[in-house]
């Protein structure tokens, strides 16, 4: 049942991606509307699917890679829908829905069975720490997309070669302020995510910080975003530089999220059940 739901959700993301791509290629507003409703539909299905998984497993479903990727896609879509409601930037969807689709496809290609929750994770801190971290990541994913869009748009304006994409993308100013808004939302979330992790670690293992690879990389990403925030507020960084830093920051986050688990081993890896 849940598998079917999961697949339908993925198909919905696929359909939304197609809708948005048709919009970007042809400029038809109907395609954009269709894309938007499909993403909303996908998100609703995704909510149900996650809720079922939660009931089935009995814990917040972010324990193995399959669950984490799906949860991340869900957070990202949710954040996008909020931004879309608040600021009406539908064209973000053209970049976001393929990303969500990619996450869902990878998620469905890794082992999916419910793993047993290690006793160490069986704590109230678990959903709080993971939820904050994922929400922060999702907001920064939107900042990343805005950064990519900014660089594309800026390149076209500077080179004076205006393709169809030029007319669909929002203005530089809109993208730059999106970058800032994401930063003001994402940075506190990420900071609280790290702090909650430290507090939890203290109560579980007796020390706040143990320099495990995930912690180190999270700190590196945090510094990148801190530098960006400082640059924006104090020095007046904006535009291209801000976009580039948002992209670099997100790449660090991606490595923290996936690279560390797949390449390095530590307390946070999915495979060894000693940690998370």
């Amino acid at each position: 049942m849940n598998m079917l739901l999961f697949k339908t959700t993925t198909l919905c993301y696929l359909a939304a991606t197609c809708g948005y791509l048709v919009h970007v290629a042809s400029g038809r507003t109907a395609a954009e509307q269709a894309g938007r409703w499909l993403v909303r539909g996908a998100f609703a299905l995704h909510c149900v699917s996650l809720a079922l998984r939660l009931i089935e497993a009995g814990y917040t479903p972010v324990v193995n890679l399959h669950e984490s990727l799906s949860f991340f896609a869900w957070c990202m879509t949710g954040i996008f829908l909020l931004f879309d409601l608040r600021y009406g930037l539908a064209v973000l969807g053209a970049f976001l829905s393929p990303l969500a689709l990619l996450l869902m496809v990878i998620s469905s290609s890794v082992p999916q069975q419910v793993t047993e929750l290690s006793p160490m994770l069986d704590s109230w801190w678990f959903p709080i720490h993971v939820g904050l971290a994922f929400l922060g990541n999702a907001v920064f994913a939107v900042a990343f997309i805005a950064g990519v869009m900014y660089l594309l748009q800026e390149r076209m304006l500077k080179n004076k070669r205006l393709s169809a994409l030029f007319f669909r993308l929002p203005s530089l100013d809109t993208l730059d302020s999106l970058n800032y808004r994401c930063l003001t939302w994402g940075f506190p979330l990420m900071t609280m995510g790290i702090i909650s992790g430290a507090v939890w670690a203290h109560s579980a293992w007796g020390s706040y910080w143990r320099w495990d690879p995930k912690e180190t990389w999270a700190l590196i990403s945090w510094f990148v975003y801190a530098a960006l925030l400082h640059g924006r507020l104090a020095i007046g960084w904006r535009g291209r530089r801000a976009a580039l830093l948002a992209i670099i920051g997100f790449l660090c986050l991606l490595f923290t999220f996936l690279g560390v688990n797949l390449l390095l081993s530590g307390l946070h890896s999915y495979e060894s059940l000693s940690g998370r």
Partner: protein
Amino acid sequence: MQIVAVGLNHKSAPVAIREQIAFAPAHQEDALRQLLATPEILEGMLLSTCNRVELYACSHDGAAAAARLKSFLCEFHGLADDALAAHLYEFRAEQAIRHLFRVAASLDSMVIGEPQILGQLKEAFARAEACRSVGLILTRLLHKTFSVAKRVRSETAIASQAVSISYSAVELARKIFGSLQDRTVMMIGAGKMCELAARHLVNHRTADILIANRTFERALQLAKQFNGRAVPFSDFPDYLPQADIVLTSTAASGYLLTRSQVEKVIRRRKNRPMFFIDIAVPRNIEPEVNQVDNAYLYDIDDLQKVIDANLKERRKAAGKAETIIDQEIGRFQRWLTELELTPTIRDLQQHLETIRRQELDKTFAQLRTLGPEERQAIEACTGAMLKKILHRPVAVLKERRQDMTGELYLDAARTLFGLDSESDEDQQD
């Protein structure tokens, strides 16, 4: 029944001719009345804009109607009969419908895709309706035309991008700044083009406009006009950090603004972007300014390139539009062909005859005892009934054919007897 179009446009006639035969709004009603007084013209409409003067009409005799429209144009404006011969074009039947669709979809315009023509056509139709010079056919044709134009606009990119220097400057500015509200424009030099671009920018409710010009009087004059501020020409660099958009069009021979100057200004603006539009030839702004982060420089050639690219897009869209028009012509033409007297009477007779045959066959199958004579009598009787029933409707249809209510009756007859039931759905949209 044929649709006929006669007229001239910016391609077929120079402005000297076009202005001679343009119809002032006050004279149009009168012109339509005179036109309708001609027996061969059943319905008529007149479209007169600065780029085209066209007459549309409905007639049973297309050739005669076209000739009449041509002579009417000369007559009405007091020109010699053959004065316009070299400039006038003439379209009949399907060609005329295609021409009207193309005009409405702005495929025949000087700037392909410009939006005014549809509005002008709507006005022309409203005027014709007001003085009752259009009947069933032109009304239906024009409604179809408006829906075709709408379809072209929404399904192709024909009107989506700017194709004039000043509009493309505004479009680019909007891609950099988003909304132009609260932005400050600075105008250095007071060239015509610069003024036009400034006017478009101000229309987007920019916050402030600063004007620097070598003759300060002129700057003051423009400042008054745009509700802006004049600044002394020698001091303009001091005001640069306030400006988001800078327009230059002075006759200076060297660069007024160099890369290092702009770098400093951007730094003082804390990296807020600036858009430079250099319309002057020779150029007023050093080209390397475009390489400064957050500064965007477009000179006149760059803007022209943007326009050319946009026009190419429009021409591509025009191809798609022609396909849409082809589809729609087919549908309209089918309706028009069926709306003729002879096929309608024939269809009517066939329709009733079919009913008579079916009923007779049923009756004869039940009454097997009837002899051949009795059968013949019944056949003759029902046949005579049909003839009598049909006599008056056919007579009316023939009689009304002479004026513009004829098609109304034909259309009514076809509807009442359900003569074009299969193609009905096509016509409804």
